[in-house]
């Protein structure tokens, strides 16, 4: 770590982070400096970024926005229980391989003609190109695709917490060295190092080994200011007064003890709903009718219904 390098880095960092933030904003993804910093670091350090946070705060959206910003294709791998390397990494095109062996069998006579004894036949066979296990017969799955993508890609490994432990372990090689090992072929290295995002909803604890290899970003629910900006960008039709009120209302709901708190995506849906209903101002009746957009459990809706009046009044005051 030389001092010069440090100094030159210093000069560039803050403006660059701001540039990233602006770039996101131009693409409709509103974020704070913290999130922009993580993108900056992920790109510079060439490290995968593990994003955690409650559902609906824009974890996946961040990866999409980054892909757009960098002008690289987004390759997405959705994790689930039972996901294995044949679906995530590569698969042999076994149909073609079968055909190939048929072809080979037919050609065998030509190849062996004139061979003297078993020894020579075998040595001839050895000289023959070994294409059976070669890249031609390799069917790339998302991870391999991301490594092979010319010019690099943004790889999104979505909901890593849903996958099994084994899969997590298997990702380690990819995440630390951007390479994968195919037993029949050897190691395949990335042509261009992809930008990797992993998202997790924390349904289970991610292993330490994986965490150690990643940068870690926690995205909480946005504060009222940020949320207003997000609504403004996503649902520009909403009038300002209504926007303030509805954000204040949602922020109020998040303070209650609920099974699932409404996330940003729900706020956006709600804002759209209110626009469709030509609402200009919140009122208790309207809120009650549209509460199911915001809350996804009947228990929660029942709980909140009692509070609607108080919350609406509060939101109106805030607006």
């Amino acid at each position, binding site marked *: 770590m030389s001092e010069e390098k440090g100094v030159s880095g210093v000069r560039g960092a*803050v403006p660059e982070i701001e540039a990233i933030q602006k770039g996101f904003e131009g693409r409709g993804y509103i974020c704070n400096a913290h999130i922009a*910093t993580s993108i900056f670091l992920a790109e510079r350090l060439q490290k995968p970024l593990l994003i955690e946070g409650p559902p609906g705060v824009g974890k996946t959206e961040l990866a999409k926005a980054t892909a757009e910003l960098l002008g690289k294709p987004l390759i997405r791998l959705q994790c689930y229980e039972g996901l294995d390397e044949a679906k995530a990494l590569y698969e042999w095109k076994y149909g073609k391989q079968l055909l190939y062996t048929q072809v080979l069998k037919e050609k065998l006579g030509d190849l062996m003609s004139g061979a003297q004894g078993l020894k020579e036949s075998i040595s001839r066979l050895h000289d023959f190109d070994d294409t059976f296990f070669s890249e031609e017969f390799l069917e790339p799955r998302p991870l391999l695709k991301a490594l092979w993508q010319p010019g690099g890609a943004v790889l999104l490994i979505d909901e890593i917490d849903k996958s099994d432990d084994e899969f997590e372990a298997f990702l380690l090689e990819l995440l630390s060295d951007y390479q994968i090992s195919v037993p029949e072929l050897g190691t395949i290295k990335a042509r261009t190092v992809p930008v990797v995002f992993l998202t997790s909803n924390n349904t289970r604890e991610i292993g330490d080994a994986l965490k150690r290899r990643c*940068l*870690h970003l926690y995205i909480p629910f946005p504060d009222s200011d940020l949320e207003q900006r997000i609504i403004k960008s996503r649902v520009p039709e909403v009038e300002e007064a209504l926007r303030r009120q509805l954000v204040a209302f949602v922020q109020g709901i998040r303070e209650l003890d609920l099974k699932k708190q409404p996330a940003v995506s729900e706020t956006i849906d709600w804002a759209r709903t209110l626009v469709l209903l030509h609402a200009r101002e919140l009122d208790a009746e309207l809120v009650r009718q549209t509460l199911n957009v915001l809350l996804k459990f009947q228990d929660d809706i029942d709980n909140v219904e009692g509070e609607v009046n108080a919350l609406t009044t509060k939101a109106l005051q805030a607006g």
Partner: protein
Amino acid sequence: MTEVLGDFIRALRAADVRVSTSEAIDAGQVVSMVGLDDRQTLRDALSQVLAKSEDEKQSFGETFDRFFAFDQLKHRPAANDAEAEAEDDAAEDDEGESGEANQKEGEGEGDGPPSGGSGGSDGERYDLVAMLERGDQAQLQMALAEAARQVRLNEIRLFTQRGMYSRRIMEAMGLYALEDEVMDRERAGNEAGADALRGKREELRLQVRDYVEKQLELFTANAGRQMREEVLAQMRLSNIDYSDMKFMRELVRKMAKRLIALHSRRRKVDRRGVLDMRRTIRANVEFDGLFFHTIWKTKKVDRPKVMAICDVSGSVAQVSGFLLMFLYSLQEVIPRVRSFAFSAELGETTDFFKREKNIEEAIRETLQRHGGGSTDYGFALADFERLAMDDIDHRTTVIILGDARSNYSNPRGDILKKVHARARRVIWLNPEPKGLWNSGDSEMKRLAPYCDKAITCASLKDLERVVSELLRHAS
């Protein structure tokens, strides 16, 4: 810079944030990349490489703010009126300033011996006096940090060392020179000047003491707690003081969590009869498409099923609190635990534990409902048979926590035999040492044959070992 970062990482570790070497290296890269100008950016950036869970982020934030807090700059009123303005400027830009102060210090290290460090004592003397005269807090702070580094303040471990370290730092900053200067002034008849300087010296002393105390807190935040945890974990459960209960609870919960995290891996077993066509073709390509290596579909098997029976009678009263606590914590982390408590009659506590959020309340209530009676293992096992026998299958592990003192009544080994035949494993955890088993009304000899394992479990360490083993084997 590296040293400051090293200290910071040490402070983080003391605050229970796990930082590995590779993460420390990353942090170094991050610092050189982001720079130290912008405090908020540095904080954001470092938090992403060093703190990797929600809890850790929280600790990180607190530690960062404390470690890089140069609040002396803020609070101390301007000493010299003439310099008040300059001071204000510094205060305005306080956030950036503190970062910069560190940076300068770091650069100093990189370039060679820092001017204040091993320079002549004359230089030091005038430096310190001049600095105090000017009231240049930023520079003082740097000198202070430098002196702290020289005397290895980061090795401070005990609060009794505060005085010693404060003194050493003062000396490293040039205390003697300062005192000489005071004397000189007195001798020269400059009483006012000497007094002023004395006042400043006092101020500096306070500042140094503050600094040392902050550092002590930073580096030893958790050391005491860690030691206490260690001791508690090995102590016999019956000897643990009531005042340690709360602490213990945290420990138990932590342990349960760790065990679960370690063993929550699911296992695969073959489900005979269903051919995995895709993989079979793939595997037999090399045999020219002849299927002689067949691959069968596999099915996941869930986590272990656990049933725990806990004796809450008087004879084990001391321990049962902890056992229940463990049961409760276990239930929080493993979804499929059924728990039972008994003294005379046995009752299921599963739902109740699930409903009751407060662990203490849950334990008290359980003790009230089921405790107090005189133990009768026969009755209890009969109740257990009625309540849960149907639910026991080859994946179930049955844990019994108790001393097997059945007040000379029939302990109904026959029921336990049946349980043993159906369950995967039966484990008996006895809080008494093995020597006392079978003495008096203890019925271990009649019950132990139907257990896969019967062991003493008297401390948290024992408990942890047992459960760890249990989870490893159960599948």
